């Protein structure tokens, strides 16, 4: 097994080695994939191992490394979560866009460069949040570095209410109760099925960034284990129809059995824009 990843999988080797703290009693290969918080995290890790400023990474090289990683994982039969595969499909698409010289200008949809910029932005933003998290957790924290009065003499609660309860208390009490009462005799079998909502989530997440006609299915299937292909195709198709109905997606097929192209619909764009107001 080790021999399988010997050559051409340098990034993977690095991954195994750089994460000794992740090791527990489980087989190393599985844990290391599990140690990442999703595909962006993995990409960020790969980008860091390029040992350059994030602003200077080669997106193409990064995509290559990621695809290599997925490839190696496949070779040693590591099961990757759907998220990773979707990212692989997206990167494969990105790669093709970067490699093919721009054909006709003026086509709608982002160019490969724009897509690369989007990816770089997302990586940078994630890294910024990581750094902020570190700075936050290293502040002088109450109960660790800074202490409150050890022997308080009174508790200055709002005088208006003689009772104390937070929204969290309320909601968790309610959720617990309803859960308890819902006769949970439903045994949910662990079937390997992409649920409609899984597929919906994945499509929305990817299409958020793709406004150009894309035969996503194609890229997706490329990266799915054969056993998952049927269910993924079915769910993704059903989900895409639903998204079309909601105006969040457009679909095009040139003829029977031709690849199905899709792109973000008008509503998706506006919903995303509306969602983007911070502070």
């Amino acid at each position, binding site marked *: 097994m080790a021999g399988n990843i010997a050559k051409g999988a340098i990034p993977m080797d690095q991954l195994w080695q750089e994460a000794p703290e992740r090791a527990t009693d489980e087989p190393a290969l599985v844990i290391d994939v599990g140690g990442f918080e999703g595909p962006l995290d993995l990409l960020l890790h790969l980008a860091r191992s390029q040992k350059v400023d994030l602003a200077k990474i080669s997106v193409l090289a990064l995509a290559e490394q990621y695809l290599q990683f997925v490839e190696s994982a496949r070779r040693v039969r590591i099961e990757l979560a759907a998220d990773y595969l979707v990212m692989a499909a997206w990167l494969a698409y990105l790669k093709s866009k970067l490699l093919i010289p721009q054909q006709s200008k003026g086509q709608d949809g982002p160019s490969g460069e724009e897509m690369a910029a989007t990816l770089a932005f997302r990586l940078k933003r994630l890294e910024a949040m990581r750094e902020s998290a570190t700075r936050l957790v290293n502040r002088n924290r109450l109960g660790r570095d800074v202490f409150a009065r*050890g022997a308080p003499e009174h508790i200055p609660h709002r005088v208006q209410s003689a009772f104390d*309860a937070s929204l969290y208390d*309320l909601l968790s009490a309610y959720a617990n109760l309803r859960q308890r009462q819902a006769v949970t005799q439903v045994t949910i079998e662990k079937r390997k099925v992409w649920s409609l909502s899984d597929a919906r989530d994945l499509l929305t997440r990817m299409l958020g960034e793709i406004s150009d006609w894309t035969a996503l299915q194609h890229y997706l299937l490329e990266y799915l284990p054969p056993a998952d292909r049927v269910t993924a195709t079915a769910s993704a198709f059903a989900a895409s129809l639903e998204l079309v109905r909601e105006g969040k997606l457009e679909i095009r097929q040139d003829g029977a059995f031709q690849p199905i192209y899709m792109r973000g619909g008008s509503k998706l764009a506006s919903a995303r824009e509306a969602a983007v107001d911070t502070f």
Partner: protein
Amino acid sequence: MTPSEDPSTDEEHIAKTETFSLAEAERIAEALVFASAEPVSETLLAERLPSGLDIPALMEGLSAFYAGRGVNLIRTGDRWAFRTAADLSFVIRKDDTEARKLSRAALEVLAIIAYHQPVTRAEIEEIRGVQTSKGTLDVLMEAGWVRFRGRRRTPGRPVTLGTTPDFLDHFGLEELRDLPGLEELKGAGLLSGRIPPNFHIPLPGAVDDLQDDEDPITQMDLEELGLLTPSGEEEE
């Protein structure tokens, strides 16, 4: 801070360091006593402070510093503690009853009323699967979070319950529609994934208006419910 050739300045320097470390020792003592749940013994202080210090003297000094303030450093035996100045106890004591935590039952009932309103007592019991004790509703009424809304136009004309504006206020909600729905409860990990497909959580709307099957509560009703003394004391 750097040593100098001139002995006089050196002496000055030493004096300065001593003042410095004394102030530093005071700060440490202060913080230790403040953060401790119990009065702090001079032995413990001696352990934590630079050795060779006259702890009792240090503490006496600190105590004098705090003497005129709102908080005093007082000695009990050989232990030290901060206490509110005795003459100020009136500010502290004033109705500082610690807010009571709501019981689990009360939280459940309140949540059901919030999500399912207008809801009758029988319906609450159906959802919870247990009887609601009278005290539970009383507590919620006392807190000012729950109110009688009206009467359901069904046999027995059961009273319907709902939440009050104070409820929204206390829980930081702008409107009832801000209560998280199924997806959000799931997403927050409050509901597990193992819920039956027909499981649903009501979306409370703007419920101030009586529903079609609700009658307003009348004066008679309130008296009947024992909420108003029969005489008319509405003029308050």
